[in-house]
């Protein structure tokens, strides 16, 4: 079956520091990986969509300078939250999918970021 792992599951960082999170797809080829954030009591916001061999597309309010993403192959992606502050806390999910018609996104369990 298709599985997505995320590491770490929980992390705490001091305000102003950076934190890297990883996403691994198992059992399928993660041609595209989308990163989302769920802030406390809110829904999921798309941060960026990364497709192997294509440019990473960031949504409004999110930038590469703040959330650099690496997607080097069909099974792995990572994202760093640079210079984290209180408003960056939340659950970060990666959703990965293969590029065949109508393929759904499979999500990992998320990385929960707490900023002190």
């Amino acid at each position: 079956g298709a599985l997505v792992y995320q590491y770490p599951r929980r992390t705490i960082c001091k305000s102003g520091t950076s934190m890297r999170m990883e996403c691994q797809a198992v059992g399928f080829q993660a041609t595209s990986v989308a990163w989302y954030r769920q802030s406390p009591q809110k829904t999921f916001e798309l941060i960026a969509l990364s497709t192997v061999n294509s440019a990473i597309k960031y949504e409004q309010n999110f930038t590469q300078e703040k959330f650099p993403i690496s997607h080097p192959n069909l099974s792995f992606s990572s994202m760093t939250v640079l210079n984290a502050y209180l408003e960056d806390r939340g659950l970060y999910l990666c959703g990965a999918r293969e590029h065949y018609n109508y393929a759904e996104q499979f999500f990992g369990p998320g990385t929960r970021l707490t900023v002190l």
Partner: protein
Amino acid sequence: TQTVSQSDAHVTVFEGDSVELRCNYSYGGSIYLSWYIQHHGRGLQFLLKYYSGNPVVQGVNGFEAEFSKSDSSFHLRKASVHWSDSAVYFCAVSANYAQGLTFGLGTRVSVFP
């Protein structure tokens, strides 16, 4: 730009009851729709999707959803809920299946015995 609206923030049902969770979207073209479930403290689990074809789609654990272009809706239903169905349900849309998803605010379902 596509948007999605889930009109019910919280739904309370008893075990064995049926439930319908509403989802309405706005977008002018072809649209890819899906439902996900989030149990407390967990990530998202895929339930079902629609892009074309039969407007009634079957998902996991007895869930189904019906697409209506005229109503711009994709409501989720289950004929008989179980206590383990207590969770938050998210409707998600995208302009095509290859893009990132836009999520609704979610509907919390509480199932009582």
